[in-house]
């Protein structure tokens, strides 16, 4: 028997009431956003006094959505954000897991020192280094592909300034390291005796038995990149390489009075993530718990 079945009815009722109230608090802003994105401004303002504010009722329209795709340039920013997130996560999975493999499974001089450095770097938040890092990227020579290939004098206002600094990630290495360390060594030994190279062991032994940690790192780094704001706000002033979050902030600042359009913009960004979350909830939960028990 679980504890719940033993609980008396009034207690259970009270607990459900509390859960329902909390759920309402957590869901209302989402519903308000989605409902308002389908209404004209007049309808939104007419509905605020009642429950209709969070329900898709009345004269519904998709005008807000067509407006944000035309005026808000959201399609272009969406592509930028997808490229930035996918490329960073994909390269990050490879680079960080390989480094963790070297730390957890191979013997080499300087390994202990590298581990100490890694743990120290874990404590450095992006916020603390974004200002000097910005100065750094303004000094790095870059490439410009808009008219053939040309050398430029800074990384500002590019897609890659939003990707390259975030591929190597101390926390991802650490998560991989913890996982790889606990895989039994018997398989590697057998593979080495059969003449396998270290990379073959990584490819055929380590990676296939580490799917959960790859999923965890994908979710954590994917969310961090998709939601990135501080870094692009200081390094990407122009429109060409702008990601969605900056697009959202700019659109909000410029068209604050158009509640319906702003909410449509927010919905376009949020719905894909929410759907991914609903389908992969178990993985999201596991990755957060995995990230929390570090240290």
């Amino acid at each position, binding site marked *: 028997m679980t504890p*719940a079945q033993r609980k008396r009815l009034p207690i259970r009722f009270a607990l459900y009431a509390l859960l329902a109230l909390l759920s309402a608090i957590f869901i209302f*802003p989402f519903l308000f956003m989605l409902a308002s994105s389908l209404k004209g401004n007049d309808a939104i303002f007419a509905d605020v006094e009642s429950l209709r504010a969070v329900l898709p009722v009345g004269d519904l329209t998709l005008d807000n959505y067509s407006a944000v795709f035309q005026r808000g340039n959201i399609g272009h920013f969406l592509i930028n954000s997808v490229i930035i997130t996918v490329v960073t996560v994909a390269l990050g999975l490879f680079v960080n897991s390989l480094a963790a493999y*070297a730390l957890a499974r191979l013997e080499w001089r300087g390994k202990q020192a590298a581990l100490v450095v890694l743990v120290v770097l874990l404590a450095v938040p992006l916020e603390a280094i974004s200002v000097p890092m910005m100065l750094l990227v303004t000094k790095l020579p870059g490439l410009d592909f808009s008219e053939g290939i040309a050398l430029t004098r800074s990384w500002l206002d590019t897609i890659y300034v939003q990707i390259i600094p975030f591929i190597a990630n101390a926390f991802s290495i650490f998560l991989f390291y913890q996982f790889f360390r606990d895989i039994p060594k018997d398989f590697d030994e057998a593979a080495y005796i059969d003449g396998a*190279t270290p990379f073959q062991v990584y490819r055929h032994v380590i990676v296939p038995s580490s799917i959960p940690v790859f999923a965890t790192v994908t979710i954590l780094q994917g969310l961090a990149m998709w939601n990135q*704001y501080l870094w692009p706000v200081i390094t990407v002033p122009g429109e060409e390489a702008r990601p969605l979050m900056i697009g959202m902030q700019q659109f909000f600042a410029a068209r604050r009075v158009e509640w319906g359009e702003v909410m449509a913009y927010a919905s376009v960004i949020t719905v894909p*993530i929410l759907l991914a979350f609903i389908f992969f909830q178990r993985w999201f939960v596991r990755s957060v718990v995995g990230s929390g028990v570090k240290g």
Partner: protein
Amino acid sequence: MSGAVARGGGTGRAAIWFGAPAFIGLAMFVLIPVLMSLALTFTNQRLVSPDPGEFVGTENYQRLLSVSYLVQSPERDAAGHIVTDSAGEPLYARARSITRTDPTFTGYRPMTEYRWGDKRVSILAKDPEFLRSLVNTFLFALLVVPLQCSAALLMALLVNAGLKGQTVFRGIFFSPVVMSMVIVSVVWAFLFDKDLGLFNTILSAVSFGAFQPVDWLGNAHTAMPALAIMSAWQGAGFQMLILLAGLQGISQELYDAAKIDGANAWQRFWNITVPGLRQTITFVLIVTTIAALGLFTQVDVMTQGGPQNATSTVMFQAIQRGVREENIAYGSTISIVYFGIITILILLQQAIQRRRARLNA
């Protein structure tokens, strides 16, 4: 067997190649910025400038952190009576005119003032705006950490009570965490609207009209609490999951034994749940505090530091001064101060953990 020997040499070389991309990346984009940051704080480097910065010693730190005070007695007239204004309040010489002329206060500006008997105490700072932001940042942490962590604990206990549908509720409570803070800020900016916002509407409805609408983000007293409420709403699901993992690590046998001994639910909570969660709670409190001290996005999207600097924070100042006003050296100095605070918190957490490990041993 020669395999082991050959492997020792072979894997060493392979390890260097495997580790190189990540470690070069970390050196380039974490280590070098940290070192640059430290070096920049002793210069007057500008963001866009053909000249390299000059060494200025600890000038940036002095400007950032210098605090002083000025005690004034009320003005007296020729007969020695205290001069008062029309409301009967004593009059004082303007603090600003004293700091301008007195050489001991060179560079200081008044930040805030208090009355002490008939004396007036003015707090002076070389950078009142930054110190105000530092105070604001701690105020935000003080508001959001208890709110967010207690909400998270409540939710963790609820979804761990063995009720039907608890995975669904867990998912609902966690869902704002996957949302971008930018989106949350935009949506809540509307919820906090004075005339049309749902926040005022609901407060007014549950108080049967007794609640007077508040301009949450436009009022210097309510803007920071509003940001704290919103941030707790967005983040509590994360702490809930961590606490939930901690709860599930407590042995069910302890509860069963306590029940046999006749302990009621409240006693079981205080004597089993709380001690069992202590380590998790410490971790959650420190992590939440660190996150709170980095407050930036909400401020940048919703209030731009206003009204009257009431929501300006340390990170907002770092970006404002360092990047938008292009004083990269000063922005770096603010970043280093922030980094120092975070480091102290991390060391504190490790000290607590070590002490606990010793006690348990």
